[in-house]
């Protein structure tokens, strides 16, 4: 397995190189000079030129690309063009915040979806199943913005159950601001997830081993929890593990409406300000996280299913 992990990590290198190259091409194909934006409304050719030199934008394209690779290889992501902050500090602060919002929402929504998915799969075709599926389809059809606007207006403003918006980085204080965004996140995630899990469980319910288990005289709960759930773990794990990088990257709209200073907000601002070093760092880290969690899900396959061997 060790050799497999090393090999997969080595595969990551060309993927990361490809990602950075495409990103670099995009920066050079899409017009727009960051120096102009930074120079402000009283820009002069001299000021623009000085800024271009400071940012290294006056170098030939291969020089700029090499600079970018060198920074990434040394994990020195440099500073934001716009705020002059160290990008590492920006990412660490934002990732922790986004994770505080995304992770509890992920755990709660996954737990609820798995339980309801298992339940309605068991009672497939009944009025309960049909009603829950119909509600899920309806819930999925509504825009995230509607949940945010309605949740913020009714639960926070009208009923005063939560703060309307805001954030406090304190380990305890932050939660009062995160409950409502987490609830919205959960509400939004449960509908598609439970339909996904229901489909997976239904696939399993028609397998021979389920019939065998039942004919052995095992109870429904035992069949569902010990056999069906276990066998359904591979697609479930894939779904779960691949979702983790997105928890860190944050939810742009939720963070924006609730004034939560996470990475979603950081990315939106970096795009608006043409803040290339931040965009490069975020893209590369996102790609790397995706590769790592993909690898992790493969390793987990082998752990939950002895038939899977990593070579």
């Amino acid at each position: 397995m060790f050799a497999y992990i090393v090999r997969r990590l080595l595969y990551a290198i060309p993927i990361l190189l490809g990602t950075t190259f495409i990103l670099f091409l995009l920066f050079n194909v899409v017009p727009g000079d960051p120096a102009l934006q930074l120079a402000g409304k009283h820009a002069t050719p001299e000021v623009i030129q000085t800024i271009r030199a400071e940012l290294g934008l006056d170098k030939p394209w291969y020089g700029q690309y090499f600079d970018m690779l060198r920074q990434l290889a040394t994990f020195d992501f440099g500073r934001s063009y716009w705020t002059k902050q160290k990008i590492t500090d920006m990412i660490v602060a934002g990732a922790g915040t986004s994770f505080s919002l995304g992770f509890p929402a992920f755990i709660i929504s996954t737990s609820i979806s798995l339980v309801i998915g298992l339940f309605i799969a068991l009672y497939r075709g009944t009025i309960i199943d049909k009603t829950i599926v119909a509600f899920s389809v309806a819930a999925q059809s509504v825009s995230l913005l509607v949940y945010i606007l309605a949740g913020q207006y009714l639960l926070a403003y009208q009923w005063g159950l939560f703060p309307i918006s805001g954030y406090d980085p304190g380990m305890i204080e932050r939660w009062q601001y995160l409950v409502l965004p987490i609830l919205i996140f959960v509400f939004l995630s449960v509908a598609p997830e439970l339909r996904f899990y229901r489909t997976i469980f239904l696939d399993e319910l028609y397998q021979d081993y389920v019939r065998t288990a039942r004919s052995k005289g095992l109870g429904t709960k035992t069949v569902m929890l010990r056999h069906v759930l276990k066998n359904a773990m591979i697609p479930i794990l894939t779904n779960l593990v691949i979702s983790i990088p997105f928890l860190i990257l944050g939810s742009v709209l939720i963070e924006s409406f609730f004034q939560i200073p996470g990475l979603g907000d950081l990315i939106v601002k970096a795009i608006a300000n043409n803040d290339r070093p931040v965009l490069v760092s975020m893209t590369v880290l996102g790609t790397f996280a995706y590769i790592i969690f993909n690898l992790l899900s493969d390793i987990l396959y082998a752990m939950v299913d002895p038939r899977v061997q990593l070579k």
Partner: protein
Amino acid sequence: MSSISFSKTTRYLTGLALVLGLVSMSACTGSKGGAKGVLKLPAAADAKSLDPAMADDLYTNEAVSLIYEGLVEYEYLKRPHQLRPLIAEAMPTVSADGLVYTFKIKKGVKFTDSAHFEGGKGRDVTAQDFIYSFMRIADPKINSGGFWIFDGKIKGLNEWRDKNKDAANVDYASIPDGLKALDDSTLQITLVNPYPQLLFVLAMSYGAVVPREVVEKLGKDFGNNPVGTGPYILDRWMRGSKISYVRNPNYAHSTYPTEAEEGDDPALLADAGKKLPLMDRIELSIFTESQPLWLNFLSGQLDRAGIPKDNFESVIDTGTNNLKKEFVDKGMVLSIAPSPDVTYTAFNMLDPFIKKAGPKFRQAIALAGDTKDTLKVFYNNRGIPAHTPVPPGLAGYDENFINPYQRFDLEAAKKLLAEAGYPGGKGVPVLQYEIGQGAESRQMAEDFQRRMDKLGIKIQINVNQFSELLSKIDQKKAMMWGVAWGADYPDAENFLQLLYGPNAAPGPNGANYNNPEYNKLFEQMRYMQDSPERRQIIRRMMEIFATDMPWLPGIHRVTYGLSQKWLQNYKPGFMGGHIGKFLRVNDDLKGK
């Protein structure tokens, strides 16, 4: 076994519900009352840095101005704007030729205590600190967006900048001739030419004083660890969410003004002569979305807010332009103030077709637009049609000047278009109209497109990222585009320079307008103080503008805001940074 696992689940869920319940209850306790002595205001965007050299945008400038100060500041209650000394002991003495300004610096003005000072104690501000701070604005390695305030103005400063451009280390030991410390508390600035706007620019954040040793110690991190002389100290900065300030305990050199304007509410002078700041703490919450801003204001979590466009008609009676009764009953106060800005659509006067088409073509386009309708549809009538680039409230604004093409008259437009040689729009290529991103820009551009269609002119709308739009303008590749300009200081010169030939792109004259008579008049008026003679020159410049129409002038925006009943001393339309130090929250009223 399964029954046990289900009961565990039930227990966990009950526990979770309890935790959520407790957290929610704690959230509810933070309603309207809150801590005393705190001023809570919104900001539409975060500061990019808390370094005054980086205060290039409105939000950064406001955030910085609570921490840093310069020699002079704007009078809070006077309109049109006037200056008063701040760190300077008095207004400067100026030599007869208008070239030498001498400032005396107040004794005992200190930088705030900081761990970055030796011993952790802030020290006195000296004339040398101002020299360093001004040189820093010109430092080619700092790349401050504020260099324009001194560019070509102070004797020897440009030469010093050029000399240090390629140097490994910028030489602060060789001081330009135009900056002299006669002693620790006397600063002398010598100019190349008269520059009547000097005092205005010194009131901007770029003119603020910074402590050299802290700047040099922190380098690029100085913007995150500000140390100034201002009324507040940074307490906590949650980027993208909130900036919190606490009172500078050593602040003693500024008091609330003792004079207001005729017609001002006498309550504005309730704190006359008192030491500033009036509040212990200021919290600036950053709202990029309007709903949370508005709901926070309605629930009393903010002391003041602008009225979002979508809520405007539920707050203002559009018939009378007054606040609706339900808000009046809550004691809220409406403020309406003109913004010193102008929106406009510029033509690139170097574009081959625009150049060939001539002024009648541009006049026709102006007549086919309907600014009053645009105001109604897109701005809830929050603005006035612009006849010239100069907005109201600035020295040089002439409310009697009427631009004959700032009106809607489709027939006259068609006639002029025919006279320009393009009857019914025949022979006019598809005009390329560049806009920035955003639904509203798009809708306004489509409205313009529909209006031009009636004239027989086709418009192609090109949506750009902001930097892309700037690139097209700066490289003189854009044909037409819509933008706005906000005042840097209260003088017409700041707007008239937008059409001065030598300021062509990538300078602020993106339209690349170059009229020799206009240029000559600009060179004359820029060195003059406000006077009837200067106003006469400006009027002639406006006439030239209205004939050539290098822009389609849009509107001067008007801001509508609401204050809670407990917010005191608010006067709208202030240009000089953040007004936080003048405001007071009446906690007794707030608690009721």
